[in-house]
């Protein structure tokens, strides 16, 4: 199951989450205000027509005054035109503001997510992130652009018309007020339930999106094993659950809707009885009763709409909570206050000083299954290979250099400066990393290679491609300008790895971190890359994760990592001769070849 961090219980069922939107609405407060004014005025102009009706019935009709009709009709016409104009004004202002708020919110969310630490991203499925950036942001836009405005306008309408009703005939007005008590009681209850249900539905959307992503991105595995049926049934279970949750939500909404629909009709019946009694007692004229009832019918729609507008507000509140969870996630890997660029040479000295990584005390290590505790000094220009069994902490160690992860104890230094005293931008400029998995983006080959150094010249790019033996790119249909598919799917594993390597060596970084950079290359290409890489490594400080002897031979020294500790450091041949654990890790190639021969 994917992780869906539950909303803090205190946040559930609270419309107060909506206040989160204020910073985003603030820049457009003029337009938002215009929207409210437009909507309010339009609603007020709507009141004029019933009033004119009353005036016509009590005035010209009662008096048979045809001429008196004309100014009243002109009045009605004028207000009718004004209403339409105000409508337009409102929608126009609403479109501009709500769409801009949506855009700003999505930009903010994206920017924030990009800067959240890797540790955060490993705990969140990308489907949840996606559904928050799309569906939840759209839900908010719909509310800002429609529901929110009308919720306020209709509430104001109810208050204003309620006051008018009280003024027109207070006993009937009081009767109307009394009827709102049960309405409020049930309304509050059901809206709370609706909020919880919409949160569930939205979370389920995220889970479904995660399944979609996995099914699409893992399509090769699915197809290789012929497991479309299994993947479909996983998805289907979630889709069916979504339907069930949606139907529960529909039922609650139906209850709310019915409540708010039933209420004004019953009130109308109450008014008829009360009004008739008032007329018979002489407290009210027939025209007065007609006017009162006409005035009340103005409230039919505002009351009815309150039901689903409040529901929409609940839905938006839970969307705000979901987005808030992301915006509130702490930016743990950031610049310390007052950091300024430090002089870092090329090549630089890289030291791991009593570096610890892990989360002791929180129920064991969290990010990896290894508790790192290392000391290592890499001299300027030196290349050190990290060798260790799977899960010994090699990749974690490489991630610490560019602060993709932050140490939990000790420090990593470059030329004596704690890397946390360097601005992130500088650190990640002087340190270049090639990851275990070659991540390419759907843009041109050139953009992929110059990812970290967009200002690199053609000759630098050509040089990097040469080192990585990635000259195959010149044979692509548009050469360096060929767009490679998302994740470089249309390139082979070896080709992707070579481009990722070219990206890392481009511009001769002060420190080069390579995580098993040659794993997907064939022997021939590997030999060529090694040869070219030697020149690069001679001029830079490098940390290279190595799984095989051929890669280790690139290094000046080797550090053996066992269970998060460095147990031996030395030259390859020395370690091979003196450290059995090292020999076991690297020299079994020939041993196996021997076994294979014997078996045959």
């Amino acid at each position, binding site marked *: *199951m994917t992780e869906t961090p539950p909303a803090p219980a205190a946040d559930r069922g609270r419309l107060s989450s909506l206040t989160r939107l204020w910073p985003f609405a603030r820049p457009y407060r003029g337009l938002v205000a215009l929207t409210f004014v437009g909507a309010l005025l339009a609603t007020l102009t709507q009141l004029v027509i019933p009033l004119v009706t009353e005036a*016509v019935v009590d005035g010209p009709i009662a008096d048979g005054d045809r001429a008196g009709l004309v100014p009243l009709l002109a009045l009605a016409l004028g207000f009718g035109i004004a209403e339409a104009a105000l409508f337009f004004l409102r*929608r126009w202002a609403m479109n501009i503001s709500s769409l801009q708020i949506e855009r700003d919110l999505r930009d903010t969310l*994206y920017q924030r997510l990009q800067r959240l630490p890797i540790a955060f991203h490993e*705990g969140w499925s990308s489907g949840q992130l996606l559904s928050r950036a799309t569906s939840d942001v759209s839900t908010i836009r719909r509310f800002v652009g429609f529901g929110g405005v009308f919720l306020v306008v209709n509430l104001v309408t109810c208050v204003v018309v309620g006051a008018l009703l009280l003024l027109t005939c207070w006993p009937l007005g009081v009767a109307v007020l009394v009827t709102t008590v049960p309405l409020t009681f049930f309304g509050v209850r059901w809206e709370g339930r609706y909020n919880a249900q919409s949160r569930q539905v939205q979370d389920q959307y995220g889970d479904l999106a995660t399944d979609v992503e996995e099914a699409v991105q893992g399509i090769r595995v699915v197809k290789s094993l*012929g497991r479309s049926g299994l993947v479909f049934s996983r998805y289907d279970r979630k889709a069916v659950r979504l339907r069930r949750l949606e139907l529960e939500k529909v039922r609650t909404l139906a209850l709310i809707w*019915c409540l708010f629909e039933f209420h004004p009709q019953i009130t109308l019946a109450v008014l008829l009885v009360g009004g008739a009694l008032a007329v018979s007692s002489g407290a009210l004229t027939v025209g007065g009763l007609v006017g009162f009832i006409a005035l009340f019918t103005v409230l039919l729609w505002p009351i009815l709409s309150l039901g689903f507008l409040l529901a929409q507000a609940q839905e938006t509140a839970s969307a705000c909570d979901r987005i808030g969870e992301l915006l509130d996630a702490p930016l743990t890997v950031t610049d310390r206050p007052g950091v300024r660029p430090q002089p870092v040479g090329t090549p630089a000295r890289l030291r791991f000083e009593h570096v610890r990584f892990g989360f002791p005390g929180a129920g064991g290590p969290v990010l990896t299954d290894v508790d790192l505790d290392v000391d290592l000094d890499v001299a300027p220009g030196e290349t050190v290979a990290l060798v260790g069994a799977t899960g010994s902490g090699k990749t974690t160690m490489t991630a610490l250099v560019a602060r993709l992860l932050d140490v939990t104890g000790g420090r990593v230094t470059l030329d004596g400066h704690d890397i946390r005293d360097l601005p992130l931008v500088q650190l990640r400029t002087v340190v270049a990393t090639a990851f275990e998995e070659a991540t390419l983006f759907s843009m041109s080959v050139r953009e992929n290679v110059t990812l970290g150094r967009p200002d690199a010249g053609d000759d630098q790019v050509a040089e990097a491609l040469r080192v990585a033996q990635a000259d195959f790119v010149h044979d692509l249909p548009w050469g360096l300008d060929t767009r*490679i598919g998302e994740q470089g799917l249309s390139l082979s594993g070896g080709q992707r790895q070579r481009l990722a390597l070219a990206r890392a060596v481009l511009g001769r970084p002060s420190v080069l971190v390579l995580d098993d950079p040659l794993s997907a290359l064939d*022997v021939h290409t590997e030999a060529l890359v090694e040869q070219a890489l030697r020149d690069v490594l001679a001029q830079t400080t490098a940390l290279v994760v190595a799984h095989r002897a051929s890669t280790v031979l690139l290094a000046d020294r080797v550090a053996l990592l066992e269970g998060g500790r460095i147990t031996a450091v030395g030259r390859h041949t020395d370690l091979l001769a003196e450290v059995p654990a090292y020999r076991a890790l690297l020299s079994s190639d020939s041993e196996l070849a021997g076994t294979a021969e014997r078996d045959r």
Partner: protein
Amino acid sequence: MTSSGTAAPVTTASGAPDPVVGPVDVHADWRGVAGEDAEEVSASGSSFLRGRSRRLLGELLRPHRRALWALLCVILVQNAAWLAGPLLVGIGIDHAVPALLAEPADPWPLVWTTAAMVAAAALDTGLRYVFLVGSGRVGQAVLLALRRRVFRHVQQLPLAFHERYTSGKTISRLTSDVEALAELVDEGLDGLLTALSSVLAIGVVLLVLDLPLGLVALLGFPLLLVLGRWFQRRSTVAYRRTRQTIAALIVQFTETFGGIRAVQAFRREPRNDELHAALNEENRRAQHEAFWLIAVVVPAVTMIGNLVTVAVLGYGALRVMDGDLAVGVLVSFLLYLRRFFDPLQDIAMFYNSYQSAGAALEKLSGVLEERSGVPDPVDPQPLPHPVSGEVVFDDVRFGYGGAPVLPRLDLVVPAGQTVALVGATGAGKSTLARLTARFYDPVEGQVRLDGVPLDRIADADLRRAVVMVTQEGFLFSGSIADNIAFGRPTATRAEVEEAARAIGADAFVQALPEGYDTDVAQRGGRLSAGQRQLVGFARAFLADPAVLVLDEATSSLDVPSEVLVQRALQTLLADRTAIIIAHRLSTVEIADRVLVMEAGRVVEDGSPAELVAGTGRFADLHRAWADSLV
């Protein structure tokens, strides 16, 4: 659209032209997703796309015909009950109040009227509930059907489609586009049926209440029709655009967070901010364009309504003064008139949602129209039991979009043989592997398994017999055990652990916080590339196929793991056919036979020992490799 070097070989096979569509011939090349990114869509192209999405909507709604009719009846009765309110108030004022004022006062008309109003309100509310729940049920059923259909279809489309279309776009089809339809279902169906029935019912009531006044009220209609036409034309284009812009946003989003390590390590954030902001702004503009149209339409409807109301008020007042009309009738008429125009706004809003969903349906129907380049055979031929695993390439030619990769290949892999493929990148090794697993069909010639052409074998049978393990080792959310069981979902826990032990993955799995139950999507469950490859291997081990294809499946393993895997392979491959692509010659050593490939041709063929002893390329490679060893 990406213009990657390797274009898909077969993507849109043209099915039989559908007679329902008009200009099929003109837009034949628009089948599937081909016309998707066309900036300018001609009028006939537009109607082609609209027709296609309408057809899809029709297919989705067809199973619910009865329910929809029933809901229509419910909503008609409910509306009648809702409309009775004002009518009863009118009656109350015209009859019950005078009766109360009369001497002697008669309270009964008032009692009856009030009772009728309460009954009408109860009926209205009850039916409203039935309708809301009922239409929710239909709507959710339609969405579920659509989700199932698109998901299943996308799963079945060939790799070539996925590589060309990119996962971000597919994801946006399956999420954002389906949600656009959900919006229509949420707001639309209910609003439309209510509004339509209200408009029809009130129209009738208006005409019955007073014919001349009713005719005046209907004067607004021609104007409304003109308005509707204008809106339809413009919004179709506008919403089509929004589907593209939101998909572009989703692509940007999924790529960024799929590669977040590289993004952060190479300080791509500011540039990504710019790209995202630009796409986001483009999406805003596209939406603004669409929303602007509705911002014009709704006030225009109001305007028409108000003009008609004033006309009715004036004309009605004159008629009352002439004594042709009761005051109560005029009051009721005006009340109804308001209820006549309010739903028209709802219809406009529904139409708006419909246009938006229609644009999404265009995209979805395009994806649904894509035909698999490697379709399941109509009359599959059974494989022998048990499958022995002889693979034959008979005069096979293959290329991606014109460039030949395998010019002409004849190859017989006898049952039980382990074949290693060696050669430089682009020599055609992976292509050969993919053809064996029928990810593609050859352009010419045949690939046969136990004498049966692959394209005649039912997909389920083929996948049972042939399994391919690639280097990526993709993990699905769930536990490690779930991920291994992916190879054979019916496997017991003991079998899963046995498979992991056999390929040497047991040790690292046991070391995880919760062993086999560790969730790979959770913190602590993150596996290294090598560990994921081991899981991939365990899957294949569990799947137990007759033919195993390994495409660089061991590239990220460290040496001890590789040794374990190779020991396991020797047992595993003893009685089955295997095609192995490996860059480590240590893996090649376990093969019975080595094929050295170059430019799609087999240039050396023999046992590892023979080739090493010879003077060919393999001997050179082997020497280089042996030198690199310690």
